[in-house]
């Protein structure tokens, strides 16, 4: 349910962006959900639909396009590139990563050299990829 907090941040950021770019209305916001954080897409989408009702009126007809962002990692120690699918984690570890994706460094290791010093190249968390609207 902390999806609601992140959905609220998307609404606020879209409203900020619209004001800065002098958009009178926003027709579509593209939001990518990183595989690592494993946000519940249904809850997140519902939260966006509900929260937008009480937001900046230019957002009232806005559609939200939810995009998948697969996680990709690169080991700082051995340069191995890897995906989330090859990494094992318990349910508790996955939940902790769900709240704070950086906890991946506490629980996950490079599949080749076992180092926890890796870079999250893609698919970390919530990001806005496009905002379309009119002036």
């Amino acid at each position, binding site marked *: *349910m*902390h999806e*609601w*907090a*992140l959905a*609220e*941040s*998307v609404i*606020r*950021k*879209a409203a*900020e*962006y619209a004001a800065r770019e002098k958009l009178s209305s926003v027709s579509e916001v593209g*939001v990518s959900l990183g595989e690592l954080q494993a946000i519940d897409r249904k809850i997140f989408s519902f939260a966006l639909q509900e929260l937008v009702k009480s937001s900046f009126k230019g957002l009232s007809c806005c559609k939200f396009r939810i995009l998948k962002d697969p996680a990709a990692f690169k080991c700082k120690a051995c340069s191995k590139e890897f995906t989330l699918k090859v990494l094992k984690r318990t349910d*508790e*570890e996955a939940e*902790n990563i769900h*709240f*704070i*994706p*950086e*906890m991946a*460094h*506490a*629980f996950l290791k490079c599949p080749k050299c076992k180092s*926890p*010093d890796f870079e*999250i190249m893609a698919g*970390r*968390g*919530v*990001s*806005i*990829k*496009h*905002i379309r609207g009119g002036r």
Partner: protein
Amino acid sequence: MISLDPRPAVIGTRLSKIKRIIAVTGWKGGIGKSVTASTLALLLAKRGLKTGLLDLDLAGASDHIVLGTNGLFPKEMMGLEPPMVYGVKFMSVAFFSSNKAVPLRGANVSDAIIEMLAITQWGELDFLVIDMPPGINDAALDVIRLIPQTEVLAVTTSSVLAHSVLERSLDLYNDLKVPVLGVIENMSGREGGRPKNCAGRLRYDAGLEAALGDPDKILMTKFAQDLRKIAVAILKMR
């Protein structure tokens, strides 16, 4: 295609019902920053003030040990609601790390801190005490940028090394236009000169270590008694 991080946009809302935010800082290790921040939060809560404590010292998170928070976890509602510990709403990365080391580079520390600030629902507070990342780095600068209402309470020891580093930190806070409430000298031997901007000194208290993990015992220490006097003065409480 753009790539916008939405999380900072909601941080102001999350902190909007907090009257004062006190960032407890320290630029040398082992000076008692965490125990000072935790005890300050306990003292404020003891006075009936709505108080929160946020441990942002990700590499050395230890406020949960000071408070003794075994078995507690934030409640997931429209975000995360911090558990109440002895009247203090408490949030820490320690809730999520399963007592493991979290080896984070600078940008990762900033990301984790932004995430915590974006999803934590503090509600109404009189005071939020932040146990800051040590020194000055990406994370500390981000906290100052994202929480412009922050007031700094700096901790040092009586060591000339700590005083020297402290003076440089005060110059930087001045440049960053961050108000400094004062400097607390911890484990004070009183053999040296007072640190710049000194708000008070905390006596070395041999009994403090044994009290860690038990807020009742902490509040009975000489350390807490000294800190209470300083807090009353700098926060202008009766």
